[in-house]
């Protein structure tokens, strides 16, 4: 009885300690950057984004020199938390991953979907799940309410994106079922893809759900969302394999942002559904 009390007390103490330790890991300590992430002390992290992708990364309409968006703001918050300075490097989306591999940038933080293929060279710290939206002309004249309805239509998606792969898979499916072929027009950026739909050159643009919804909301006379797919795809921050300190800084920071509701607030601010938030996971293959 006495023994068990002692043990219980001890257990309490140990648990308390653990909780206290856990709590310390769950708060920002920008001054301790040298201890926590030695190789990042004094360094400026280069964040690669394509600032043509609202609501994730885009130019602030009030000051074009500033890049804002759900991803951009998260990146800033996470590295501020780690005590590291950041600088945004902007390029066409398709140039970002090769630059990460060549260490011309330290992280790619711009609507990057995890795939095992990409994980061969890049480590992913995933923080949200993806939905894909099919944006069609206002009123959905061709009644495209599912990806299976694409046979015989013209589809556009961004070069190198997962959505393009999905469109290609659907095209193969149509062919296998002996239905009319899908015409695929890869677009260089979202805006040009959206213009294809507005000018009826393409019937649907497939892109990230939040982006599609944003476009439909801002331009109801032009667009509407035809369909959505919850693909179960994960969106994460890309870091070159082996860059342990950056991976740790991003991972720790994201956990804190989720714990203290920062991620939720930022998502709400940019009309991204907060329910898409996912526990932080490091995926390396």
């Amino acid at each position: 009885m006495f023994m068990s009390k002692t043990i219980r007390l001890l257990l309490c103490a140990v648990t308390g300690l653990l909780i206290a330790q856990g709590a310390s890991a769950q708060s920002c300590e920008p001054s301790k950057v040298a201890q926590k992430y030695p190789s990042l002390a004094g360094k400026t992290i280069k964040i690669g984004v394509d600032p043509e992708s609202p609501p994730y990364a885009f130019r602030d309409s009030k000051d074009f020199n500033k890049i804002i968006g759900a991803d951009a703001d998260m990146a800033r918050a996470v590295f501020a938390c780690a005590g590291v300075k950041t600088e945004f490097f902007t390029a066409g989306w398709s140039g970002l991953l090769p630059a990460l591999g060549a260490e011309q940038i330290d992280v790619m933080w711009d609507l990057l979907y995890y795939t095992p293929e990409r994980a061969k060279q890049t480590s992913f710290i995933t923080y949200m799940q993806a939905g894909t939206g099919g944006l069609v002309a206002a009123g959905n004249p061709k009644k495209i309410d599912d990806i299976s309805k694409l046979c015989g239509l013209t589809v556009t998606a961004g070069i190198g994106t997962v959505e393009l792969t999905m469109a290609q898979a659907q095209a193969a499916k149509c062919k296998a079922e002996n239905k009319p072929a899908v015409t695929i027009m890869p677009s260089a950026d979202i805006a040009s893809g959206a213009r294809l739909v507005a000018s009826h050159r393409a019937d649907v643009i497939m892109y990230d759900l939040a982006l599609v919804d944003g476009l439909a909301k801002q331009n109801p006379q032009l667009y509407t969302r035809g369909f959505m797919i919850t693909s179960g795809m994960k969106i994460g921050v890309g870091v070159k394999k082996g860059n342990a300190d950056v991976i740790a800084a991003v991972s720790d920071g994201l956990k804190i942002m989720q714990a203290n509701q920062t991620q939720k607030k930022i998502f709400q601010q940019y009309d991204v559904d907060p329910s898409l938030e996912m526990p932080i996971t490091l995926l390396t293959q």
Partner: protein
Amino acid sequence: MNALRIQHRVVGALGMLAMLALHPAMAADLAGVQVLDGFKELADYVGSPFLLGGAWIAVKITLLAMSIGLVLGLGLALMRLSRFKALNSAAWGYIWFVRGTPQLLQLVFIFDALPLIGLRFDEITTAVIGFALNEAAFSAELFRAGILSVNRSQSTAAAALGMGPLLTLRRIILPQSMRAVIPGLANDTIGMLKLTSIASVIFVNELTFRSQQVVGQNFKFFTVFGAAAVIYLFLTSGISLVQVWLERLFDHERDRKIAFSWFGLRASTRDVKPVDAPVVVPVDVKEPDANDHAWIGTLLPAESRTPRHCDEPFVACRNVWKSYDKREILRGVDLSIAHGEVVVILGPSGSGKSTLLRLINHLEPLDWGTIKVDSQYVGYREIPGGGGTVRPLHNLARARAEARVGMVFQHFNLFSHLSALDNIVEAQRQVYAVPRAEAEALGRELLKSVGLAAHADFLPHRLSGGQQQRVAIARALAIKPKLMLFDEPTSALDPELVGEVLGVMRALADVGMTMIVVTHEIRFARDVADRVVFMDGGEVIEQGTPEQVIDNPTHERTRKFLNVVVN
């Protein structure tokens, strides 16, 4: 008047743009107010520091890459024109590869692959390198075309004056080729300025990419891309104006004054008088009178009278052989010429007369035999223990300059971008380093002595054939030659102009210049020559006094030839 015309053009262009913009706007059923607001917004974007910053990046990359690319391109062009096979092939391979692969891939390769071997460049440096390497390949072909467009006779004339290949390139060939090269270079510059947008894939945040980003944020692509187009148009207009200015500068057919001279690239502004105004050509002085010619005598350099080996002839050709490919041009020619002697070489075309002249001042290499002028080889040295065989020297231009052999060509070969006076001054200044004032003074004296004092500032194309040939003689005399070679100096002239040139030559002979003259002018030969040499089939058939060869030829072939020429 001109300003008014330009104004009209600008207004016209703006109107055109407005029409182009208006059409889709009207098609989209927009009200007038909306269109007006659109234009206001467009104007705001044109002034946006964000977009202008992007334009500056594009300009910066273009300026740097163009400068580096042109230097490399000129080098590549020279390699392409080199007679060394290895250089030529290397340049050809480079151009083949760079022109043949997509520039986008080259940029990604430099930016993303070279770091793997430790070469890490930032985005602007990468873009400058990538665009410069590309421009080198493209401009190399432009430069090569420009250089090839300049008549070979120009470099032959320069070589005869003792100018080396690089000096000739810098002073004679490049200035004349610029006119052909500049339009292509302007195309390249404009193309590059616009093409910098492909570097967005390697993080270059320039105008097109920036406007795409703005469109990505607000989807107003009409106004934003319209603004980008206006900025591009403004920049490319600047390039076009520079092109116009450069083309005028290097237009050597205009009468103008030297405005700019940098590292041998001379350019000039138009003369005050308009081109279409009648040019006042001073009445040609009559046949230069005897006094003028006597002055030529003072020109004869003291050196040509230096004590020489009295036992040796002044010009000695020994067993000279020369062939082009398999065709034998000279077959063992022996010819000796004494100091102060005037020798006229007669013979049918293809007999090797002109080739012999070009071997004497080493414009062409010998195949076999030796030629000495004033007891010296011109650009050869004897191989020790080679039994009198010779080998060409490395610095041929210098050897030619030291030999001081003047040459006059059938087609004059005046430097067409230089005035009469500058033609005469050029070699003195560049080869013999004579001070400008002294060189010009001599040039004016020479022009006066050939009766062209009033034509000093005329470009060759403003002169008649006879006048051009007299300038050419003056140019050859300016280097104070010990020996003058005349290669059919009157064959390209109208009959009435032949006299004025022969007059000058006669005067030269009178004052004791050693001369070898290839000509068909039998009268000149009879009157002036000390000796006439008849050549046929690459051999000397007979020689002797004019009376012997012309009036009493011993050889059948001579007789046949004279019959044809005299009648």
